[in-house]
């Protein structure tokens, strides 16, 4: 876009880099200070240490007992395990549901189509606190015991919308005549789906599934309301830790989470690049 509308190209560039600094400096601070040996003030550099990482993995450290904080490594591990379990199950179910509805809306003619579009749109614009309290009221009044199963149900209600949107976009780009050709050549519905439709929408389905997985892993608000006492997920666990007090161990946990986010993001972008 070459135009004469340039209110100071130099200042704009400087601003651009400043903006990126604003986005990335806070994240870098966590990483840097997770190696800080100062147990009293986390923000004054006092030499390099791996002690905070040793603490969260339960290895012996050079720290004395008083400066140690991690409540229980077992609790942290179970939170991670809960998060992964929930995210896998949620992703599986919501990918199936979201894809099925997307296929129905894109490839069939029926009267309630606009209703389904609205239904799939609603969870995305619903403030998460509303969905959280509504699910809590629902589960408690119908006698569900709160636990991993309620978290999976809760996440699925809004994550199938995300899958629906991603898969629908893919279906809209797709050439319908290929499916017609397959049918004309005598393939039955299932064969057409398996050999033509599915391979073509696969990138959309995978993209939707990854999005669902990431959002499920990260969801705090809805999980906060509907997780039982023994079934906290990682974000809820960390939120609890933060509310009890800021200690250096959290830096180390946060850094590990950052690292895994970067790995997941790069895998996703790699897959997307390969698709092209």
């Amino acid at each position, binding site marked *: 876009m070459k135009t004469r509308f340039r209110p100071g190209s130099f200042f704009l560039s400087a601003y*651009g880099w400043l903006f990126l600094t604003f986005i990335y400096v806070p994240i870098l601070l966590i990483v840097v200070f997770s190696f800080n040996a100062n147990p009293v003030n986390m923000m004054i550099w006092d030499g390099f240490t791996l002690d905070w990482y040793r603490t969260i993995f339960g290895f012996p450290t050079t720290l004395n007992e008083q400066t140690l904080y991690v409540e229980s490594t077992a609790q942290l591990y179970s939170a991670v395990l809960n998060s992964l379990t929930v995210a896998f199950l949620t992703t599986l179910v919501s990918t199936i549901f979201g894809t099925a509805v997307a296929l129905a809306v894109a490839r069939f003619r029926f009267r309630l189509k606009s209703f389904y579009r609205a239904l799939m749109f609603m969870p995305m614009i619903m403030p998460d*606190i509303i969905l959280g309290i509504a699910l809590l009221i629902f589960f408690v009044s119908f006698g569900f015991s709160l636990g991993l199963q309620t978290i999976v149900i809760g996440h699925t209600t809004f994550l199938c919308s995300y899958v629906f949107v991603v898969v629908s976009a893919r279906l809209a780009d797709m050439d319908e005549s290929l499916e017609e050709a397959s049918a004309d050549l005598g393939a039955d519905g299932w064969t057409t789906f398996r050999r033509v439709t599915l391979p073509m929408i696969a990138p959309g389905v995978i993209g939707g599934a990854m999005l669902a997985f990431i959002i499920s892993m990260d969801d*705090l608000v809805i999980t906060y309301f509907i997780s039982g006492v023994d079934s906290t997920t990682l974000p809820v666990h960390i939120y609890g830790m933060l509310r009890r007090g800021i200690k250096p161990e959290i830096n180390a946990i946060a850094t590990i989470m950052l690292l895994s986010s970067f790995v997941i993001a790069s895998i996703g972008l790699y897959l997307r690049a390969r698709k092209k």
Partner: protein
Amino acid sequence: MTARFASLKARRALTLYGLLLTPTVFLAFFFLGPLSIMMVYTFLTPGLYGGVEWVFSHLNYGRILGWADTRYDQFDPVYISIFLRSVRLAATTVLTCLVICYPFAFWVARQPERWKNFFIFLITLPFFISLIVRLFAWVLILRPTGFLNQALLGMGVVAQPLDIIFTDMAVVIGMTYVFIPFMFLPLYSSIEKLDGSLIEASQDLGASPLQTFLRVVLPMTLPGIVGGSIIVFIPSLGNFIVPSLLGGARVVMIGNLIEQQFLSARNWPFGAALGMMVMAAVLLLLMIYVRILSREDKQAETQQPKEEETR
């Protein structure tokens, strides 16, 4: 032939039901169900020890909007004022995001293709990073003994640590930081579509840069501005995580109030009624948005023929 066609049609109908049946049952039960029950709850009487009694009551809304159960308490406008404060903080967040992102989106749109994609990647990357981790970073920065104060004290800019955390400003900073990608993406997509020749035309016709911006650039990027503003406003309004970490006990938003009613005060009907306030605000906003959209469509329709004529 017709029999075969009929059976084909029946099979297609069967496939459609197969696709829709389970998701429909699931969503009816676990999405529409909970929302309906929540609405019913707002009209019930809270039980003495948590829980509810199935007796109709309009006092949950009364407590918020202006009539109270005079046997127990006087009407307290505190709930309305907390709600209005939440609206104010959410609106400030939207405005801050907008002002920060707009020039940046412009800058990115003018980069060569490869850099463009790289910058978009850099902006979307934080979306993959856990929300709680990103907020934790700001707790570290804004605390009295935090990074910002250490830096300012070290440079001798201030003599006393600044009191930033647990203020409205800290909450706005936190929400802005977290929701920036939501604002950037819609803004960018409408700024990228901007037609450079129109800007040139405006300048050739003697408009000042400010006039060009206000009369050409701004109206053309309005869809992005409105879209971004709405998807930032919605999660900001009912937020309770950011105010509880960065606002402490001093900055209470409606989300914190709802959380308290559900998890400590255990007055669920009242909490649900507070939730309906958030919901009502969101619905109102979406209705306005749809109105604006349909009006713009109409304008576009009526303008098209005119442009043809003038050519």
